[in-house]
């Protein structure tokens, strides 16, 4: 009888722990939203903090070092959105590189307070003039 009671308590505790882990994970499962996912249903993300992930579009980066204002386009090659960030770009931030920005949309522009770099799983020693593998970077975001 005592064993049964302990067993039942154990099952309840495990179930509660499992539920909490599931809740935490399902939040983590969609770590960032792609621009085309946002474009499909902007209402779902209205007035909500979110992470937007994608590739920094080539030629779109502008940094005003006096005002510490960084602007660029984040794209998934279907949709792209303008990102405004107050602060300097991280070291590994670059055009055609993966990026995840934290913040919220304000009138079609993503106002970010944190720029994170998502780099690919490709590691290579530099060779002069070698281009970066854009396809591999894009694949790493799918």
């Amino acid at each position, binding site marked *: 009888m005592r064993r049964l009671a302990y067993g039942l308590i154990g099952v309840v505790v495990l179930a509660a722990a499992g539920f909490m882990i599931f809740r935490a994970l399902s939040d983590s499962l969609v770590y960032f939203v792609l621009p085309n996912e946002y474009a499909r249903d902007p209402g779902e993300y209205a007035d909500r903090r979110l992470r937007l992930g994608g590739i920094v579009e080539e030629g779109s980066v502008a940094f005003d070092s006096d005002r510490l204002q960084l602007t660029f386009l984040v794209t998934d090659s279907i949709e792209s959105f303008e990102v405004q960030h107050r602060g300097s770009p991280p070291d590994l931030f670059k055009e055609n590189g993966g990026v995840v920005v934290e913040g919220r949309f304000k009138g079609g522009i993503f106002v970010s307070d944190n720029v*994170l770099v998502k780099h690919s799983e*490709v*590691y*290579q020693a530099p060779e002069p003039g070698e281009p970066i593998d854009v396809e591999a970077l894009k694949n*790493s975001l799918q």
Partner: protein
Amino acid sequence: MNRAKRPLWLSGLGLATLLLFGTGAVLALTVSPPDVNQGELIRIMYAHVSVAWVCFLAVGISALFGGLYLWRGRAGHDAWAVASAEGALLFAALTIVGGMTYSKPTLGVYWTWDAKLTLTALLLALLVGYFIVRALIDDRERQGRVSAVIMLVVLASLPFNYLAAEWFRTLHPAKSINLDGSGVTMEPAFVRILLFNTAVAVLAFSYFLLERVRLGRLESARQDEAEREGPAGEAVHV
């Protein structure tokens, strides 16, 4: 008295590990080329990845001996399971510390709750729980059985952790060395040094493991002696 002395070969293993550790550090810090994207920061990778792999190995060994203990009930298997669990806890903590060190300058944050990092935090929490539960149980047989079950749960979480960056969107980069034959996206110059450092981490873990098993045996021999002598000396738990 003599049994308590560390055997010479074990001291030799420790010394050899220390020397090879120095070699691995030199390879990582000076011989390795920089990475085209990360530059010199790639050198942290050698410490982070090797330690993470050994953490998985340690959980596997602890779960194996835990399983054997559940099956056969031999105290010796439990001693191996605990020793390996201590190694797993140490290497899990090192994985997280090294990962945070690596993550801040490359990805831009020390910590974020993506699937890979969340599962690793869970792994560390379960390993801490393993030792809390052991400390709460006095009966040595139950101690062994309950903690073995916890370690089997930890083992079951490892495939999700290992493949987290493949299955879910994460900030943590995906695997570069794919064991299913779909290729290696890390240059051989990096892979060689990573494998060397992994071998050194395995040696260090083996040394800790063997030394801890030796101490565990001495410990349980003493407990047996104390129990045989009866309630004369120490207080008896009811």
